[in-house]
């Protein structure tokens, strides 16, 4: 895209880039370190790693960040959105300070992962993919963390809980301190 007219800061979302100049600078220096070309077709291969970096920095990928990455790589914003909506790793919704992910891969699934997921939903009163209104928790499902012998498995941020039962759900939640 040759240009984006008046990005401005009209919405809450647009503010994110303006409000976090240090984050923006970090993303910019990362993308600028890539061997990008004038030809969008050659930049396409760098899209996923750029989005990984962007999500790592901003915790999620709002429209303004998607647009920023698209402009840098000379791709269309719609294509960036297409990639984000395809991979469950990426999210365009704000995520909680604590990320709870229930594994619903085959082994966990047959050992009752769905019941665990349902208990988290009930307890936090949110659906899969959502974040609690206080911004503390977000809940998701993922496919296999490679710990099938411990099925069913729940991940709280980077920590793995094995042999999880519905009774353990409140404990896991109480483990989180801000």
């Amino acid at each position, binding site marked *: *895209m*040759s*240009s*984006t*007219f*008046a990005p401005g800061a009209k919405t809450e979302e647009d503010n994110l880039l303006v409000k976090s100049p240090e984050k923006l600078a970090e993303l910019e220096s990362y993308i600028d370190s890539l061997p990008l070309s004038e030809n969008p077709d050659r930049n396409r291969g760098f899209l996923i790693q750029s989005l990984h970096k962007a999500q790592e920095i901003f915790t999620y990928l709002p*429209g303004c960040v*998607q*647009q920023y990455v698209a402009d840098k790589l000379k791709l*269309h*914003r*719609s*294509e*960036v*959105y*297409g990639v984000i*909506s*395809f991979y469950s790793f990426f999210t*365009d919704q704000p995520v909680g300070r604590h990320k709870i992910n229930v594994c619903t891969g085959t082994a966990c699934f047959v050992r009752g992962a769905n019941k665990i997921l349902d208990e988290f939903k009930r307890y936090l009163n949110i659906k899969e993919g959502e974040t609690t209104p206080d911004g503390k928790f977000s809940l998701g499902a993922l496919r296999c963390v490679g710990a099938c012998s411990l099925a069913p498995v729940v991940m709280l941020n980077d920590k793995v809980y094995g042999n999880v039962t519905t009774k353990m759900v409140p404990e896991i939640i109480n483990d989180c301190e801000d």
Partner: protein
Amino acid sequence: MINLTINNMPVQVTEGATILEAANKLGIKIPTLCHTRLDCFNVEHRSGSCRICVVEVQGRPNLAPSCCTPAMEGMIVKTNSIRAINARRTMLDLLLSDHPKDCLTCEKNLNCQLQALAHELDLHHVLYKGEQSTYNKDLSSRSIVRDLDKCIMCRRCETACNTVQTVGVLSGVKRGFEAVVAPADLRPLSESQCVFCGQCVLACPVGALTEMSYKYDVWKAINDETKTVVVQTAPAVRIAIGEEFDMEPGSIATGKMVTALKMMGFDKVFDTDFAADLTIMEETTELIERVTKNENLPILTSCCPGWVKFLEHQFPELIYMPSSAKSPQQMFGAITKSFYAEKMGLKREDIIVVSVMPCLAKKYEASREEFSTDGNPDVDIVISTRELADMIKEAGIIFDRLEDSQYDSPLGESTGAAVIFGATGGVLEAALRTAADWIAQKDIKEIDFEAVRGLEGIKEATVNVAGIELKAAVCSGLGNARALLERIQRGEAQYHAIEIMACPGGCLNGGGQPYIHGDTTILEKRLKAIYQDDQNATIRKSHENPSIKALYEEYLGKPGSHKAHELLHTGYTPRKCW
């Protein structure tokens, strides 16, 4: 060269050719659905996603999609083995299991490639039943309707939108059963940088992308006794509408179309060509002024609303470049609701202006705020070539048996310079004809500017206009326009004047034209017809149109006058991209 055998017949193809192309060379038709190619624009879409074109290749465990499998030396291919036939039917069956079976009332009925395929593959009942996608229709724009329930994910529209036009609105989003083609954030089209060129509608093999229809509004208007209903027909409509009535592509059906419009009940049948001549008067005045002063160059044409919207979104910093002249459609509306209304003693509210356009963006253009006075638009209703053909059929008019009629006066008189607006290069050529005469102050006889004709995406020419060397370029297809504008921005190219049309080939391949289903020879015939119509015209220069001369004498004064600016010129708005 590569030698292979298909259905026991040897065939030789160049390296890189696909099995599909090799089979075609042998006169074997392999059914396809997602695959499409437009030879004259060098566009091919081969996503290999539908798997309808699978064939059996000896020694290969899986069936191969022939549209994207290169032919290899010694390959032995069977296109009609029972395995291939069954696989094709299963694929089609699965596609149909998640497709509404409302063919009878579908906009694309009889123009649908999925429907045709079900017939061709002899599929008479759907085996698979299960969940079906349900989405709300996107009715947000004035031009294009998106009905995602019908989308088969062939992604042809993405190629049209992103590769050909580089507009970048449509993308495959989500995955699996939830996958659809949509703008970013699943926005409605009206909240995107869609320019409504309608190339996606032409690309869509099914009824997922269709035009917003205003046929019934036209019937209501015609039947409203209190209104004077006038119709204008764009240059490219007359050379394509015959196709809808099985006339040979490239037939010039102007006279029959005028007769049909009169039979339908329009009070006056006028011609957008008249307004095209008017556009040339204003635009050429501006061209000569800007070239003489060497200011704000290059001047870009502004007839095409898709192109104008593209510029507003994608190149807002170049917004000073287009001519301020309104498009012929909007000039026609403005003159009808001022000059003509006064002449007939009518108020603007008493007149309904209907446009017949080869274009879907014209529907959007007519709704732009600046083209209304006190909420009353200069152009009230816009229908496409296809919609007019539908209405003629509905009215029971047997088109090919009609006698010819003439347009009404005074807004029906036009020249050969106006009709070539329908092809890429035509607007520029028409402007050059007038510019040459005006600069030389005589009647120049050499008026065929061959260098700017033809379907190529970017044409460049240095033309001698009455002793002045003018560097001109002609662009059709927005991807080509983007490439050219970027070269200008980088200082790699300099021109005095550039004509840009959003659709590849110009209006003759507009989003509202009859479907060609990949047969680009039809476009070449349409092109030929346009220049034939120009050759046939008695007057071939816009400024020699007697009704145009009279309009200036009686009403507007001179081209570029205060009155002309008030009625015939406009401005542009920078817009955002999503």
